[in-house]
């Protein structure tokens, strides 16, 4: 929190004479805003207001009728954020969730948040919403105490009014207390949050507020936006990755039915037409000449990564790893690999853009509306304040829609044709032309000391980043080096970034060492752990599964893995069946125990974890982007098979919660631990130690029949 400017200071606003910009200049920072009349809206939908300023940043507004509006920068992408935020505000203000309206992801209406991208949104945003709501509660309580001339302890907010505790009949409504005045408060002093023991709304499985719209088909995604006079665009794509457009003859395409314009601006070439299908058809009539670049080859991927590696950040080190490895009784080294993976949301990328004077409005499908705003402003030579990004419902993102490219393209096209333009991708475009999860190569060197414990851990991470790579175990000598590499495919953010790949390498390696030493995999980990939350999660998972150190052979394989991510600890156990002849793996059961701090909405967290297990099984068992001669080969769901109903195991979820920690709950931790849990179960089943994702059936088959 910044300096304390949150004294009991009231800033009356002359509503007639002061613009919102002036008002903001006066207040700045983070504000809690109470108003009798709705504050001047920064812009009605579809057009930015004159004051859609950079620093527009109210987190919360309370109307005199008790209605609460919260404003948050992170959109709903299916993670249940809208509902969880409403719960947090409702808890602090002691109102029902139905009194809370949530405005998300509209850059002209919500505050900007400078947060660590690895911090879960629920925690980053939720804690600010709670702080704002708690501050508002205290202000209202103080006003009531003053009105009744009693101390603060004797008044309490309850159901949208303030009550006087000694005389239960005495109450004041929020409107009465505000009395037509406007109060602006900047979050300064940390206001005490409602302690977990008193929670009535946080911790409840409240149904998703957007659920009814979803089941009626009324949730509005970017492809459902309809603006007057809107046209539809389709890009002409190059024949292969890295190709450069040399020239294009667009005359024949321009003459096609429904075509409004063929736009060719530098690297951007697209047809804009009255209907999406007509735009798509007309692109085939563009005569384009491309210059192909170097063709990345899949066969040399991991070698290329290693050869192009440069240290991305200073090595992280504790103790003296080299000396400890040299003095170790036994050493274990191995390399681990993870393929490029596509985010593959069912809703392909899309954007709608419209220009009005010198401003641009973009309807975007993204988790990062402010990044899209900056991308569009940069590309069009505008100030950020001239661009408004309105996030629609997002049909899956998983980190794949952070990049602003599609919004930039739509905005350029809208400016070129002078009318609103919708640009959407086909499934093939979605799987070919967006960035992928980075492929990973991870080398681990490990030394075991005289007492059979790990004394040295040395990890080199290539290309996928260091997230989750620092071991959560108390190995006395540890080193982590992360390398940037020349990747042959476009790569970018992914749910958990390198977390799943790094946990895979570590947890498979530990399993291997435990096996070599004849130790139970869980006991072996526990002897290196001191983190009580992690220990508790591991014990919970083991107990639920019925883990036994020396199991009789059953034909099934059981594997364990654990991980830390974004403030959560997770332990997972997978039970698999392996078909020896084909090497195919069938995952039958998964147990997840995840401690994510305070749980805001348990059912929603379970939903997220279940989904993460399913998605994680996809890239554990079969997902890989394949390419050849600069062409991505996996361009459809037939060639890029994500998990289906047929593959889903029984999933048991336990939530051993540390309620005093911030709410870090999402599915990412569970996503991190699942690959190793399955790989370790495969080893348990058939003795195949596989160090590559997705687990290649051929390797499993070969090892199983050795």
């Amino acid at each position, binding site marked *: 929190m910044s300096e304390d400017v949150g004294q009991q200071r009231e800033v009356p606003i002359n509503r007639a004479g002061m613009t919102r910009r002036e008002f903001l200049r006066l207040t700045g920072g983070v504000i809690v805003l109470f108003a009798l009349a709705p504050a001047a809206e920064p812009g009605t939908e579809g057009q930015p207001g004159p004051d859609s300023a950079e620093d527009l940043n109210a987190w919360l507004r309370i109307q005199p009728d008790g209605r609460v509006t919260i404003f948050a920068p992170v959109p709903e992408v299916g993670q249940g954020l809208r509902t969880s935020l409403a719960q947090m505000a409702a808890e602090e203000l002691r109102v029902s969730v139905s009194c809370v309206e949530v405005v998300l992801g509209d850059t002209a209406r919500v505050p900007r948040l400078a947060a660590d991208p690895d911090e879960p949104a629920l925690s980053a945003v939720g804690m600010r919403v709670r702080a704002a709501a708690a501050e508002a509660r205290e202000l209202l309580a103080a006003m009531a105490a003053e009105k009744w001339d009693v101390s603060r302890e004797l008044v309490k907010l309850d159901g949208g009014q303030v009550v006087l505790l000694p005389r239960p009949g005495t109450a004041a409504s929020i409107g009465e207390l505000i009395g037509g005045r406007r109060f602006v408060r900047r979050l300064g002093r940390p206001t005490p949050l409602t302690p977990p023991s008193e929670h009535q709304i946080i911790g409840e499985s409240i149904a998703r507020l957007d659920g009814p719209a979803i089941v009626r*088909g009324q949730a509005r995604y970017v492809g459902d936006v309809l603006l007057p006079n809107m046209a539809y665009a389709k890009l002409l794509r190059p024949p292969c990755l890295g190709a450069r457009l040399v020239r294009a003859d667009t005359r024949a395409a321009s003459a096609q039915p429904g075509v409004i314009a063929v736009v060719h601006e530098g690297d951007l070439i697209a047809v804009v037409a009255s209907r999406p299908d007509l735009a798509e058809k007309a692109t085939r009539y563009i005569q384009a000449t491309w210059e192909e670049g170097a063709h990345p080859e899949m066969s040399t991927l991991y070698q290329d990564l290693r050869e192009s590696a440069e240290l991305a950040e200073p090595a992280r080190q504790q103790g003296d790893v080299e000396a400890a490895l040299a003095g170790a009784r036994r050493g274990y080294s191995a390399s681990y690999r993870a393929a490029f993976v596509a985010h593959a949301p069912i809703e392909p990328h899309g954007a709608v853009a419209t220009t009005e004077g010198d401003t641009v409005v973009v309807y975007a499908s993204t988790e990062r509306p402010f990044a899209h705003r900056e991308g569009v402003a940069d590309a069009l030579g505008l100030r950020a304040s001239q661009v408004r990004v309105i996030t629609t419902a997002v*049909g899956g993102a998983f980190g794949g829609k952070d990049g602003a490219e599609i919004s930039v393209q739509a905005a350029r096209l809208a400016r070129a044709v002078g009318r609103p333009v919708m640009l959407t991708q086909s499934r093939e475009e979605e799987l070919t032309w967006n960035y992928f999860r980075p492929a990973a190569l991870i080398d681990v060197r490990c030394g075991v000391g005289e007492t059979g414990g790990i004394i040295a851990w040395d990890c080199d991470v290539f290309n996928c980043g260091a997230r989750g790579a620092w071991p959560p175990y108390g190995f006395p000598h540890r080193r982590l080096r992360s390398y940037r590499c020349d990747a042959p495919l476009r790569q970018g953010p992914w749910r958990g970034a390198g977390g799943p790949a790094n946990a895979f390498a570590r947890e498979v390696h530990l399993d291997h060492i435990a096996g070599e030493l004849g130790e139970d995999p869980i006991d072996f980990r526990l002897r290196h752990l001191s983190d009580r939350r992690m220990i508790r999660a591991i014990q919970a998972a083991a107990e639920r599964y019925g883990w036994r150190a020396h199991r009789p052979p059953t034909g099934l394989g059981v594997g364990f893995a654990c991980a830390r991510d974004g403030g959560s600890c997770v332990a997972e156990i997978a039970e698999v069946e392996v078909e020896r002849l084909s090497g195919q793996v069938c995952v039958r059961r998964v147990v997840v125990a995840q401690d994510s701090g305070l749980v805001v909405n348990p059912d929603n967290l379970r939903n997220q974890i279940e989904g993460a297990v399913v998605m994680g099984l996809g890239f554990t068992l079969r997902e890989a982007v394949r390419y050849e001669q600069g062409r991505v080969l996996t361009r459809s769901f037939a060639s890029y098979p994500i998990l289906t109903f047929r593959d889903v195991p029984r999933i048991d979820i336990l939530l051993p919660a540390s309620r005093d920690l911030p709410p870090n709950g999402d599915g990412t931790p569970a996503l991190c631990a699942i690959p190793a849990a399955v790989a370790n179960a495969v080893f348990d089943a058939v003795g195949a130690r596989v160090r590559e994702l997705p687990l290649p059936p051929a390797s499993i088959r070969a090892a199983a029949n050795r």
Partner: protein
Amino acid sequence: MARQSEGIQIRVNGSLYRLEVDSSRSLLSVLRTELRLTGTKYGCGAGECGACTVLVDGEAVRSCIFPAGHAHGRTVTTIEGLAQGGRLHPVQEAFLEAQAFQCGYCTPGMIMGAVSLLRKEPNPTELEIRRALADHLCRCGVYPRIIRAVQLAAAKMAK
């Protein structure tokens, strides 16, 4: 070149439409662009993901690969037409009860697929549900809840 326009007559969610459209256009394109029924989603354009599932004469079809002309003279039900008189269809209710969605994009197609399944098999086993919906994809991974929702809906409809 686009074929010459011809008239198509379709009953959609109870209303009769006469459309002058190229009959080879996909039913999905006609529903979304001409009728502005945007609850039905595009996911793959190849009949592989099920997001575009609608009912034609009660039968689930992939509207992204179903030519609009084939719907001529037939009855189409989309997600917008399931609720009757403001009351949700039992399958919609069950999806809410089981909270069987995350991003919600595949949900309309899932619901239509489930409605079609329950018409044919009012009391499906879990295995039958998995098989019947196997070609409906959900990237958020909500499958276990969708299975529960279909079971819940079956129980509701049996009453």
